[in-house]
């Protein structure tokens, strides 16, 4: 009996449930963003830094990206960074800062080539570059092109055509 129950559970944990956890999917999006954005230091061979500012909602999903290759560069993930260290990141996921702190970070980074991504409310509207939104349990994203241009990032049309474009609302 006990073995039977054990086996049932094992099968269960192996079979991939149709629904994914939100942050596993968001991590996969981050990986895809890395493919479709050009940084000014394109052509160099140094690692592509993916950083996390704020608490970690990803669990193992972010670590799973560590060491993957994107555009010929090694993906490096960094957690527990502070706002100053954020300036040297290529992609910065910002999690759960209060709005004022969020605005400070964005102001600080606005002319630096850092692709800011977050699921905070109205992130792209307040000056972030890519904002995740959830519609009917599906993850969609908004892009603020103006902010991307300020940061000297070129976003591929493949990414743009799937995004909702938003303007900074001041």
């Amino acid at each position: 009996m006990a073995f039977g129950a054990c086996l049932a559970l094992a099968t269960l944990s192996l079979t991939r449930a149709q629904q994914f956890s939100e942050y596993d999917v968001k991590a996969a999006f981050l990986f895809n963003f890395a493919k479709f954005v050009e940084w000014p230091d394109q052509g160099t061979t140094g690692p592509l830094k993916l950083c996390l500012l704020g608490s970690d909602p990803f669990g193992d999903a972010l670590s799973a990206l560590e060491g993957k290759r994107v555009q010929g560069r090694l993906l490096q993930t960094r957690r527990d960074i502070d706002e100053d260290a954020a300036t040297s990141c290529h992609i910065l996921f910002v999690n759960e800062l209060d709005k004022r702190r969020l605005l400070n970070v964005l102001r600080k980074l606005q002319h630096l080539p850092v692709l800011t991504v977050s699921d905070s409310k109205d992130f792209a509207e307040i000056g972030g570059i890519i904002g995740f939104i959830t519609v009917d349990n599906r993850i969609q994203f908004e892009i603020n092109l103006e902010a991307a241009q300020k940061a000297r990032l070129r976003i591929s049309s493949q990414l743009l055509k799937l995004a909702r474009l938003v303007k900074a609302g001041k």
Partner: protein
Amino acid sequence: MNGTLSAIGDSVLGKAITALVCALVLSALSAAGKHVAAANLTDMSLEQLLQIEVTSVSKRKERISDSPAAIFVVTQDDIHRMGATSIPEALRLVPGLQVSRIDRSKWGINARGFSGGFQANKMQVLIDGRSVYTPLFSGVWWDEQDTIMEDIERIEVIRGPGASLWGANAVNGVINIITKQAGNTQGGLLSAAAGNEDNGAVALRYGGAAGKNTHYRVYGKYFDRDAFVDAQGKAAGDNWREKKAGFRLDQQWTADDALTLQGEVHEGDVGGASSAAATLKPPFARTVAGQQRTESANVVTRWKRRLSETSDFALQVYYDHSQRTTPSLSLGWTIDTVDVDFQHSFALGERHKFLWGAGYRYLQDDFQNSFDISLHPSQRSDHWSNIFIQDEINLIPDRVRLTLGSKFEHRDIIGFMFQPNARLLWTPDDRHTLWASVARALRTPSWGEQDSRFNVQAQPGSPFPALIFWQGSRQTDPEELLAYELGYRTQVSSALALDAALFYNVYDKLIGFGQLPCSLRVTRGVEHLDCPLVFQNTLEGETYGIELFADWRLFPAWRLLGGYTWLKSDLRPRQPNTGVAGITSQVGTDPEHQFFLRSSLDLPHNVQFDVLFRYVDALPFLRVNAYPTLDMRLAWKPWKSLELSLVGRNLTDDHHFESGKQTIVTPTAIERDFLAVVRWYF
């Protein structure tokens, strides 16, 4: 089965070994499985990723971790997965809330005590910003509070006082039911259900867009629910039929302005078990049917505007009409409400975040008096007005935050009320949150407690029979609460979150009864003694308790949630020999222990399996025994647009009571119930 295996399996040591091996295998597999899933995801194209459905995880709870109050959120996913067919059923998922079903359509719901009876009266309940507790007895007619369950976005429940923001009646808690924006309910939904206790339920919704920035939905709902049984196991006559139709319109008017207009009409035939009513001639009691008829309509409009990055305001106006008749008592009333609310938030400097607002409510009732229950005067209108202010002070940015605030309220007859609170939040790091609060809240006497006459019981006597009745009094003061709370939340790992709250509530001026001398009177030609029990502030006391909650995602596909509540109350007359203690509905109506365990499992081939086990301790005053109960749901989604599910509720016994004998309503026994549900999205 293999002999050796079962031999090992049967010994205690064998069981331990099996368990250990099992755990090891499972943890290895789950780790492997997790990486497989994540790796697969990164191989997907953007287009594929956009189509993936995700389970909503702790995102909202992380925001909640910033809240210095005992707050809990029931998500649409929770409601859906438990197959809840009404709002009270969804509230069973909230730790620390006492939900007792009185009959088919009536519930007693309260946090932190005073819950067991129909007159659970210390909660503020709002649906999309519209307050739905009745001024008549300060409780909620849960049979009127309904909508398309699939269109509820979330239900936020705050245990503990919320009066500094929500005003009087938000004494023991606030329940905030929030429906989805029209933009999130696009397309069609048809939901149909039937079962051994449900003769049929249909809900139909269609959402569309009118231009780029305007979305709408229209919906209708109908159900016919079968009666439960009485103590003898016979149908109790509490059948429940409802018709409901409504709409919601959301418009992003400009980049900064959002407008909402929503409305609903409702009609219900609400059955009820018959109860005894007083009569002045032998045998001094008569049996009256419990049937009621309800009609209601409301319209709500809201304007939200963003003034700057750190400032916004909201203006809301609503109108609500409700009426209810009880033919067997020749009783009926209509209540009309107009409410205007304004809120403005803004940051001041680096450290202060202000929220202030003002509100006004006009209420009017028209009561059709009967022999049994009457209001004097039978028509009244009330003006309630309030202002509130709150300051959130970042004492140490991101670490220590102090919230100070108060509501100042004025009501007719009662006068001014002052309901302040102070809350301190400390987040030593990203994983731990500690909070503490002191708050004052008031419950204003209901119209019933101020103006009613209710003939409870007649007794034979010589030379005259005696008629005992409840009598309202406008001298009654608001009930007062001073609440002390402590809370702790921790995110142990990305898979495990824990939440604990402690409270100590000190009540004064609780409304009970005072006895006045009898007088001789003639009613309907019969001479009798008229013996009043007057609503008075006769009681005081303390309640205290612990509320624990854990949310554990063992595997990506398996989530366990558990809650335990311990609740004690010590209430007594304020002056010895004044309170008629035995009659008050406020003592001994709560379970001392409450426990639930919920398992939420995703199986292969789009199958979901959910189980909810609950244990509720006895309610001594209501003579309700402790009961365990079990609900289950099995759902299968063969296509994205179609879901089939089977729901079984109260599976552990044929029927049981969750509430006991009380005045006005006769409880019925909740039966075991099976329900088949089809959901089609088009």
